[in-house]
């Protein structure tokens, strides 16, 4: 994909560009809102990663001008967590997605993949099926091959993260941030323990793992159990 990174903090821009290039994207950068706007209007980008806090013209203004000009380039907003207002979270600003700073690079890459439709978008319905697992989000029920699996609230949340994006690898820190929203006092071992408990409940004595550990990276839920 051709991606424009709009970020006035040079170091962050460089780090994001490097990660994107490594993932095979072509990247350009701009450091203020006005420059970004003219770049987007004059070129075709598949995606714009847009910081909200920008000199000259802030991210919201850039986005508004774009949409007013009927330019529908996909935009991922970068914002500070405390300023996640309804405007951002409801994506009423016209953004396709948002990420709060500071973010995990893996998560940014995963979001970009989703926006670029390289990865299927997360399962959003009330009932999610992955392999022989079925999750009813409203009723808070999980069954495996029809048999009820009794999960604690956190185990349920954990499985939900995996089932919404099967095949995607989640780092421990991303899981931590998704469930507790903030760094947990204790280390990411908490995640490990929950994963262990979840595996045990899902395996039902069979010698197989639905959730695989990717050494040094994180965890992934497979559609078909591995051994």
């Amino acid at each position, binding site marked *: 994909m051709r991606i424009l990174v709009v970020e006035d*903090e040079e*170091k*962050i821009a460089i*780090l*994001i560009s*490097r*990660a994107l290039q490594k993932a095979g994207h072509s990247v350009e950068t701009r450091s203020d809102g006005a420059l970004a706007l003219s770049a987007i209007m004059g070129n075709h980008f598949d995606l714009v990663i847009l910081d909200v806090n920008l000199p000259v013209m802030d991210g919201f203004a850039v986005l508004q001008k774009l949409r007013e000009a009927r330019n529908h380039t996909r935009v991922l907003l970068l914002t*500070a*967590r*405390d300023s996640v207002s309804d405007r951002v979270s409801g994506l009423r600003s016209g953004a396709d997605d948002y990420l709060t*700073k*500071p*973010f*995990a*690079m*893996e998560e940014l890459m995963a979001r970009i993949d989703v926006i670029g439709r390289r990865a299927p978008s997360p399962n959003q319905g009330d009932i999610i099926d992955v392999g022989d697992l079925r999750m009813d989000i409203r009723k808070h029920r999980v069954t495996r091959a029809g048999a009820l699996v009794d999960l*604690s*609230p*956190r*185990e349920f*949340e954990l499985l939900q993260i995996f089932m919404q994006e099967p095949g995607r690898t989640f780092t421990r*820190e991303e899981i*931590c*941030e998704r469930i*507790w*929203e*903030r*760094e*947990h*006092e*204790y*280390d*990411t071992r*908490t995640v490990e*323990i*929950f994963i262990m*408990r979840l595996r045990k409940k899902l395996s039902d004595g069979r010698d197989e793992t639905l959730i695989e550990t990717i050494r*040094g990276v994180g965890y992934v839920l497979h559609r078909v159990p591995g051994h």
Partner: protein
Amino acid sequence: MRFPLKFQVGLYAAIVSAIALAIMPTIIRPFIYHQQLSELDSELKLNAEDIFEDLIARSAKGIDARRPLTRDFIPQYLKLRFIRIWNSDGSEIYRSSNWKDFEPRNLPPGLKTVVILGRNCRVATLEKDNFWISIGTKLGTIEGMQTDLNFAFTVALPIVSVLVLAGAIWVARRALRPIADMTAAAERISVKHPKERLPVPDTSDEIERLSRVLNASFDRLEMAYSASERFSSAASHQLKTPLTILRAGLSELRGCDYLQPAERETVESLLQQTRRLTTMCEDLLLLAQADAGHLDIRPEALDIVPALRSAVDDMEVLGINQNIKIQHDFPPTLVVTADPRRIAIVLQNLGENAVKYNRRDGSIRISIREEKERAIISIASTGPCIVPEDAERIFERFNRGATGENLKGHGLGLSIARELARAHGGDLRLARSDENWTEFELVLPLVPPLT
């Protein structure tokens, strides 16, 4: 017992005027008495002069000076006076009929107060051309005046006191009205309305000066307040950029293939510390917002029981190494008014503390009860007791009490939890702490019944 200022002013004014009224006659009465007496004295002297003139005229006609005088000799206007006339050899030539019951001796010249017929009388004795005259009158009028004065003051005292009391209260109330306005305005000045100021009356008096001085102080307070708020907020925003760079750089490093396991572990722990720093930044920002009074709380009807079950879940896992047992007792559902994200933070902080300050093989009890339109969530844990001196200090920032000095965490957990609970209209308090249990109570408003 204290009365309002206006009544105090009224009372003091009434007391002062009563004392003044009581003292006044003792000053005024002798003064008036002497004034009237000297007037009387000069009148008596003039009367005597008139009689002398008649006597001299009589002598000029050649009438013997020793011959007694008749009543006709005395002018009509002096008929009521006590009069006695004698000549130089001491023989009396006239005595008025009312000169009774008083020793008829020749008085020395001068003025004298004597008793005639049981009444105080003033008598002037003068000598001229060998004639002596004693002329006197009753002091009744002057003495009556004194009695009247006494009476007037006695009657005036209570009346004037009551009038002064009422008047002073009225005046004080008027004078204090600007103070009442100022008090009301000062009460409105708060974190939420820092721009509000006291009314400054255009009266060039003490009240105007006071309002100006106080307003200047409020200006300085507001400046200091917003400066510290801006500082915390700017500091945590400024920290976010380097944190983002650190995190991105470290996670890029972690993704490198050539890292040795030991190096990877170091990078992992650096990443974790970076995330802790991020959390700390967010906590500081949250406290800055709470201090500034714009903590963003979005309360909704929230069933608190699932949140509590999640908290129990967390505590079980956190306490797994210390073998901590968790007992809980929840109703199937209990709906409170709360912001789910914020309450999650409060419960996480309390849960972490309950594990962190626990002992090996200890216990945690968590329960919830309703009380007067409030839900009270109790989280009790075994472990060291919080001494009474620390009971409030543990809610202060970066303070973990005497028992928590060497434990993990950055000491903001309880103060954040309390700020958030209070921003919800609830509270967080230490309900008890002894050698058995340390119990915190989180109070949250229940969802108001539909009306």
